[in-house]
C-alpha cells in the first residue's frame, strides 16, 4: 500500500520534469529551426525545417508531439554523433552509474564511521578533527580535488594509473558487455587483470566525487547519533546492562539511519551533477562528458535528453531511498 502511494507520489515530479525539459528545448530564445537548417540556410529552407520539426505549431500541440515522442523513447538525434540520443545515453550510462556508485560507497563508508565516532565523544579532539576535515572537504571544488589527486597520485607518486578514462585501452581490452560496468563485467568474465585495472582507474575519480558528499553525511550522522544516544531508550538500554556495542549499533545507530536516508536525496543531487565535472577531469566516457560536448556544440536534443535522463534517475533514486526507509523504520509506512 505504502509502495503504491509513494510510486504515485513521484508522478507530479515526473510531470514537472517533463514540462521543464520541454520548455527548455521549445519555448526559449534562439531559433532551433535556423540552427538545424545549418549555416548555409536561407529563409525558405529554415521555414521548411521549421515545418518538418513541427516548430510552426502552437506550444500545446508541440507539447503533445513531445509526449508522443517520449512515449516511444524518441529523444531525437544527436547532431554530433548522428545516432539517436537515447542509444548514446544508454550506451554511456553504465560508466557514469559505476562511478557514482563507487563514490557513494566511498562517502558512506568514510563519513558514517566519522559521524558515529564524533558523536560518541562530542567536544573531544576527535570531534573537532572530524568537523574540520569535513568542512575543508566541503570547500574544495570537485574538479579541483580531482586534478590535485591526479597530480599527487599519478604525477608525483606514480601510484595511480594514467587518467585516461575507464580502462587503458592500450594495455587492456574492455570486458564483454553484460551490465556495462567494467568492474562487474570483468568479474563475470573471470578476468582478474581487467578487473584490477578498471578498479584502479575508478579509485581516484570516485574519491574526488565522494569527498564533497562527506560533509552532509558526516554532519547528519553525528547529529542523529547524538540525539539517539541522548534519548530515553538508549539510557534504558544502558541501564539494563546491555553491552556498549549493542547499545551503539542496535539501539542508537538504527534510529539514526532514518534522518540519514533523508539527506541522501541531497547527496544524490550533488553526485549526479558533479559527475559531469569529474568525467571531464578523468576523461571518463560517461553521460556527463557526452553532455558537456553536446552543450559546447549546441547539440540541443542531446543536452535535453541528458537533463531528462538525469532527472528521472534522480527521482528513481529518491524513490528507492524512501522505500529503503520503510524497511529501516516501519513507522514511516503508517505515517503516509
Amino acid at each position, binding site marked *: 500500500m505504502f509502495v503504491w502511494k509513494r510510486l504515485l507520489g513521484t508522478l*507530479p*515530479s*515526473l510531470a*514537472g*520534469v517533463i*514540462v*521543464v*525539459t520541454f520548455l*527548455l*528545448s521549445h519555448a*526559449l*530564445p*534562439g531559433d532551433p529551426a535556423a540552427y538545424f537548417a545549418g549555416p548555409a540556410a536561407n529563409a525558405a529552407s529554415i521555414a521548411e525545417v521549421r515545418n518538418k520539426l513541427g516548430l510552426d505549431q502552437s506550444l500545446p500541440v508541440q507539447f503533445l508531439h513531445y509526449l508522443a515522442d517520449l512515449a516511444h523513447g524518441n529523444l531525437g538525434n544527436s547532431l554530433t554523433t548522428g545516432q539517436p540520443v537515447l542509444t548514446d545515453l544508454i550506451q554511456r550510462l553504465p560508466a557514469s552509474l559505476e562511478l557514482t556508485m563507487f563514490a557513494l560507497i566511498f562517502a558512506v563508508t568514510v563519513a558514517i564511521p566519522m559521524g558515529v565516532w564524533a558523536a560518541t565523544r562530542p567536544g573531544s579532539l576527535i570531534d573537532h578533527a572530524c568537523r574540520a576535515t569535513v*568542512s*575543508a572537504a*566541503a*570547500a*574544495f*571544488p*570537485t*574538479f*579541483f580535488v580531482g*586534478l*590535485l589527486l*591526479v*597530480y599527487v597520485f*599519478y*604525477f608525483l607518486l606514480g601510484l595511480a594509473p*594514467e587518467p585516461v578514462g575507464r580502462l587503458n585501452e592500450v594495455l587492456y581490452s574492455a570486458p564483454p558487455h553484460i551490465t556495462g560496468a567494467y568492474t562487474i563485467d570483468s568479474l563475470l568474465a573471470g578476468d582478474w587483470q581487467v578487473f584490477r585495472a578498471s578498479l584502479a582507474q575508478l579509485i581516484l575519480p570516485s574519491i574526488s566525487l565522494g569527498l564533497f558528499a562527506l560533509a552532509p553525511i558526516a554532519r547528519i550522522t553525528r*547529529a542523529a547519533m547524538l540525539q539517539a544516544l541522548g534519548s530515553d531508550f538508549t539510557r534504558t538500554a544502558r541501564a539494563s546492562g546491555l553491552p556498549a556495542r549493542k547499545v551503539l549499533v542496535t539501539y542508537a545507530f538504527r534510529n539514526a539511519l532514518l534522518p540519514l536516508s533523508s539527506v541522501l536525496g541531497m547527496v*544524490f*543531487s*550533488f*553526485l*549526479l*551533477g*558533479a559527475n*559531469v*565535472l569529474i568525467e*571531464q*577531469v578523468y576523461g571518463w566516457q560517461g553521460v556527463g562528458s557526452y*553532455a*558537456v560536448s*553536446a*552543450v*559546447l556544440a*549546441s547539440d*540541443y536534443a542531446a*543536452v*535535453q535528453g*541528458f*537533463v531528462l535522463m*538525469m*532527472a528521472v534517475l*534522480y*527521482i528513481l533514486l529518491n524513490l528507492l531511498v524512501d522505500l529503503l526507509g520503510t524497511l529501516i523504520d516501519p513507522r514511516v509506512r503508517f505515517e503516509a
Partner: protein
Amino acid sequence: MSATTLARNVGHAFGQNRLTLVAVAILLLLLLCAAFGQQIAPYDPLMTNGGAKLLAPDAAHLFGTDALGRDILSRVIVAARLDLGMAISAVVLSFLGGLALGAVAGYFGGWSDRIIGRGMDTIMAFPLFVLAMGIVAALGNSVLNIIIATMIINLPFYCRFARGEVNVRREMGYVEAARMGGNRSLPVLVHHIIPNILPPMMVQASLNMGWAILNAAGLSFIGLGVRPPTPEWGIMVSEGASFIISGEWWTFVFPGAALVLAVFCFNLLGDGMRDLLDPRQRI
C-alpha cells in the same frame, strides 16, 4: 536586540570562534582584489609573453606563468571581480526572488502556496548542477545566463525558508496587532513580517554563497559562460589541467586555491553569522 547585547554577541561570536575573524580578513582581501584588481595586479592579466611560457613560481612571477606567458598571480587577482560578481549577483537575485515568492506563499497560502510550492518542487526534482547546465544550454552560452541558471537552482532554498518563516509569523501577536490597526495585507507583509525574517535569511544567503561560487566556477570549468582569455578561476583551472601530466602544477593550483579560499571564507562567515543571530543553533 540593544546595541550592547549586539556588541556582546559580536564579541562572543568572534571570541568563541577565531576562524570567523580569519574569514572576515579573507573577505576583505577578496573584496580588495575585486574592487582594485587591475591596480593591484603586478602585470597586465591579458598580456602574453612568448619568452616566458610556463615559468615556475619565482620572485618575478610569484605564481608562475601560464602557457601563453601570462602572469598567473595577476590573473588570479583580477578574476576575483568576475567570480565574486557572478556568485553575489546570483545569490542576491535568488534571495530577492525567493523572499518575494516565499512570502506570498507563506502569507496568503491557498492557491498561491500550492502553485509556488509545486514550481519549487519541480526545480528540486532535478540534480541541480545538471539543471543549471540545461538552462545555460537553452538560454545561450554567456556569463549572464550562468548567473540566471545559478539563481534559478538556488531559488527553492530561499523560497522554502521564507515561506516557513512567514507562515509561523502570520498568526503572531504583533502581526495580528498590525492587521487590527487597519493595515492591509501587503503593508503587513512588507513592514511587519519581512523585516523580521531578514536576519535568518541573511544567514542562509552567506551559507549559500560558497555553493554559488562553486556552481558558477564549475559551469565555467566545463567551458560554459566565460570565454578565454577572460581571467576567471574555473576556466583557469581547466586551462591549467592539461599541464598536470607534464608537472606544471602552478597553472591550476593557484586559481583552484583561490576558489577554495573564497568558498571557505563564505562558509565560515555563514557559520559565524548563524552563531551571532541564533545562538541556539550552536552545536
